[in-house]
């Protein structure tokens, strides 16, 4: 963006201030600066308006919105005359201010809806004052004694560690149940026979372990279904699930690899060498 002189329009000059310190310094230097304006230096139309407002040399609360509007429109005119490309929001603001100016100059039409021209002007003045206040706050904030600049943290922090100690919980009941489980395993075997349509993961594991040795190439997991379990849907479902779970276990143990090219594609298994 080119820079250009604003002649008498600008009494003080915003400077593209891209960092805090420059910006802080700018505040004090502003008055003496040359009247050179870089449109890029403005942070939007409200920023431009605020800078123009400062030229009125009055408290922002007593600002003449009408005069400010004229200043802004003159600025935009000048920029256009110099064929500067202005961002759309500057033009939108110009249009709105032109409207506001006409409302302020003309007597209100009877039965007019919406906020009065004075309300709109007051809101704009408020926005400018609030933005100015936030600028001031930002400067005060950046001017504080900052960490790493004025205040420093401990240079040699010590490792404050949190060691993990594992305590195993096992109660008497766990112990007794475990023993009962071990000692009565045989008693239960007949019960397992009742569930003839259930193929357990352990069964699948027992079956797969000797079989995977031959799976040197990628082999469809479904081809490992035990005989007699492939057709009946219920049995097939159970055997598939058990086979899959067992395949995952074998993968976890690093004995096989699994792959699936895409969702719902066949799952393939290969021996890991």
């Amino acid at each position, binding site marked *: 963006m080119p820079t250009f002189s604003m002649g008498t329009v600008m009494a003080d000059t915003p400077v593209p201030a891209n960092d*805090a310190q420059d910006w802080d310094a700018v505040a004090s230097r502003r008055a003496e600066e040359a009247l050179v304006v870089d449109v890029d230096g403005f*942070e939007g139309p409200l*920023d431009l308006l605020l800078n123009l407002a400062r030229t009125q040399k009055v408290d922002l609360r007593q600002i003449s919105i009408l005069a400010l509007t004229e200043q802004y429109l003159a600025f935009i005119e000048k920029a256009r005359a110099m064929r500067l490309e202005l961002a759309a929001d500057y033009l939108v603001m110009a249009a709105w201010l032109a409207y506001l100016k006409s409302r302020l100059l003309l007597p209100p039409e009877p039965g007019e809806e919406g*906020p009065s021209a004075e309300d709109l002007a*007051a809101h704009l003045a408020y926005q400018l004052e609030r933005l100015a206040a*936030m600028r001031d706050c930002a400067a005060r904030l950046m001017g504080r004694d900052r*960490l790493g600049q004025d205040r420093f943290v401990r240079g040699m922090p010590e490792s404050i560690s949190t060691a993990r100690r594992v305590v195993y919980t096992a109660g008497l009941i766990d112990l007794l149940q475990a023993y009962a489980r071990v000692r009565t395993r045989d008693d239960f075997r007949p019960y397992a026979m009742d569930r003839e349509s259930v193929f357990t993961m352990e069964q699948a594991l027992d079956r797969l372990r000797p079989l995977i040795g031959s799976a040197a190439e990628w082999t469809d997991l479904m081809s490992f279904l035990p005989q007699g379990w492939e057709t009946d849907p219920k049995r097939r479902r159970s055997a598939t699930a058990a086979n899959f779970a067992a395949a995952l276990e074998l993968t976890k143990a690093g004995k096989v690899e699994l792959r699936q090219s895409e969702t719902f594609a066949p799952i393939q298994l290969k021996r890991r060498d």
Partner: protein
Amino acid sequence: MNDRPEDTTEEAPRDSLFRAPPLAEQERMVEALLFASAEPMSVAEMAARMPHGCDPAEAVQLLRRRYEGRGVTVARVGDAWAIRTAADLGYLMARETVETRKLSRAAIETLAIIAYHQPVTRAEIEEIRGVSVSRGTVDQLIELGWLRFGRRRMTVGRPVTYVVTQGFLDHFGLESARDLPGLKELREAGLLESRPPGEDAPDLPEDETGELFEDEQEPGDEDEV
């Protein structure tokens, strides 16, 4: 150091089995912990490391008084504590400073607006600055650890809000968001509202009026900082 009166245990009968160390000793413990940690440490974190029955909140107050006027100070940071070098001695260490990434004016202003108006939405920041907030600005501030997301605003679209963090307080040497410079004056001048005092702003959509009561807090009331 062991001159603690006998009746202290009576004050905390439930802890009678684990008598807390004398307060002077607790102060030493807090001193060691705060010196060891580069990050602010909450009273709860200290308590978790100290023996049962200790009162780090009281010990830290003792410690703070002890370090008044010294080369390092005990600083409150939100609900935590940290030891930091005294600000007037910063020039001694200045050469240690790693050149920090320069903050853009947009970032600085956005940060100030969030600090003074929190919790605040992106739309509100844009309203105040009159320009849109670029994504990079917020990202940068979050990366610096100065911003985080607050609760969503209970309005149309449930926009996220931004609030400042403990890291922000630590960086700028603030005990809490209530201590932001000029906060009281700004509030009294009505400059922390979204519209001029007394103005009804009839053109605002209805659902925005409710939010003032449901969700928005004055920066000073923000307890999460």
